[in-house]
């Protein structure tokens, strides 16, 4: 070896330098940022108090309801599209492929505007059942279904071929074998990625903004923005952000646990 330092010593020094740089960056930001102005704009204690309990009872509640309704609708539609994608009937496969490419390739925002504007135009006089809630479930679900269909398809294909053969040899029809044997196993495989999709949907529910909602239908982002403009202060936005994190961080934690458990089961 040419250097007098051992390999381990060199690694320690390199790590030490990286830590020092990190701490220096933190200190720099801490010293240079104007904390008073930030606090003034984002953390007014008396404003925070005014947000409660409405931000929980209306805004967070609506966010959760929008997310779950979109998730359930997307899951059902996604399963259907996944099965079409795997069908032996070619036109089903084409429809499924086109759907998946179309809705994965468009920004969710455009879908929402489309649902809000085009659907009432195309079907005058008919209301989407559930009003705003129905529209949100439709908008979120249409997009989520495309992603979930691909996830579920992969899950179904990950179930060993012998499972279908065993079921068929026992007299199950193809459809019954799918329902009783293949899909339950596929769902076990796709629970972690589907939970991830739930986290994404939770954030995407903020797009409700573009549908035009009543006061009682506001979710976290709209609520935060409205109150921020009313009070000319950004504190409500910061609190709304924290409300998202209260849900998404534990959910992400659950996903990691599920993934670890699935890895161990292999």
């Amino acid at each position, binding site marked *: 070896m040419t250097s007098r330092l051992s390999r381990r010593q060199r690694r320690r020094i390199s790590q030490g330098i990286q830590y020092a740089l990190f701490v220096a960056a933190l200190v720099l930001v801490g010293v240079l940022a104007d904390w008073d102005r930030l606090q003034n704009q984002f953390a007014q204690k008396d404003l925070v108090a005014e947000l409660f309990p409405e931000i929980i009872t209306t805004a967070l509640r609506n966010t959760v309801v929008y997310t779950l309704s979109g998730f359930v609708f997307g899951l059902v539609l996604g399963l259907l599209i996944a099965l079409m994608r795997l069908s032996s009937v070619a036109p089903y496969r084409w429809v499924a492929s086109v759907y998946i490419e179309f809705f994965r390739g468009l920004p969710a925002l455009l879908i929402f505007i489309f649902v809000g504007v085009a659907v009432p135009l195309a079907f005058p006089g008919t209301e989407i059942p559930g009003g705003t809630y129905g529209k949100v479930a439709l908008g979120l679900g249409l997009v989520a279904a495309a992603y979930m269909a691909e996830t579920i398809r992969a899950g179904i294909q990950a179930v060993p071929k012998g499972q279908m053969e065993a079921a068929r*040899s026992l007299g199950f029809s193809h459809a019954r074998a799918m329902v009783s044997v293949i899909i339950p196993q596929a769902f076990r495989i796709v629970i972690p990625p589907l939970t991830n999709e739930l986290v994404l949907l939770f954030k995407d529910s903020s797009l409700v903004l573009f549908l035009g909602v009543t006061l009682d239908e506001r979710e976290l982002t709209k609520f935060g923005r409205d109150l921020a403009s009313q009070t000319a202060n950004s504190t409500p936005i910061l609190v709304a952000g924290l409300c998202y994190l209260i849900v998404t961080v534990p959910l992400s934690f659950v996903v990691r646990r599920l993934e670890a458990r699935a890895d161990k089961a292999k």
Partner: protein
Amino acid sequence: MPQPEIEIRGLHKSFGDNHVLRGIDLEVARGDVVCVIGPSGSGKSTLLRCVNLLEEPSEGQVFVGGTEVTDIEVDIDAVRRRIGMVFQQFNLFPHVTVTENLVLPQRRVLRRGKAEATKVARENLERVGLADKADAYPAQLSGGQQQRVAIARALSMGPEVMLFDEPTSALDPELVGDVLAVMRVLASEGMTMMVVTHEMSFAREVADRVVFMDGGVIVEEGPAAQVVGDPRHPRTRHFLDRILDPSAAEAPGPEAGGPAAG
């Protein structure tokens, strides 16, 4: 002459350009045990899978219990209920317990009530000596135990015929005996069985007839004692020499008339 339980006439099967079965004619009488032996790639598993139409024959006819399986009009799910199949890889349903593995097909396919299905499941688990594993999940069992559960699952559908596709090939050697013992009892009870196997001692003891296949055709068939004990055809003899004493096989080299490798 009584009608054979399984009858195969002029059966051909191709996968693309690969002509796997080249004209098979075979009959299995009710209550008989027929062992199918032969080198891998000889088409014996494909033949078995054609009997319950897991593979669709390219040509020819298959009858089971007088029903033509290969008839396009036939209700294949109904026919398969009468044919039990046991796979090399067990193929138990991993997401449910042992009991549920036996109960689920009875309820979904035969529409049996829960109480009756559970009772039949218990009886069949006792039959294979695994009543104490009723609540275990498949992954908690050894390979031999899983295969016995798979046999019990097939039996609980009340089949007239049982097909075994190399049932002991995926097992550790010390677990093979338990599975063969269950199959031996089944044979003595009069079950019609078609068994693809490499277990020559099982074939010699239990089989009424042994069929030797090579290259997609039946090369030799007859009573077990004759085909396994005193084969007439040189290809059968060569195969048996290799399988009975693998260490005695010559080093691979150019060799005319030898069986297809692979």
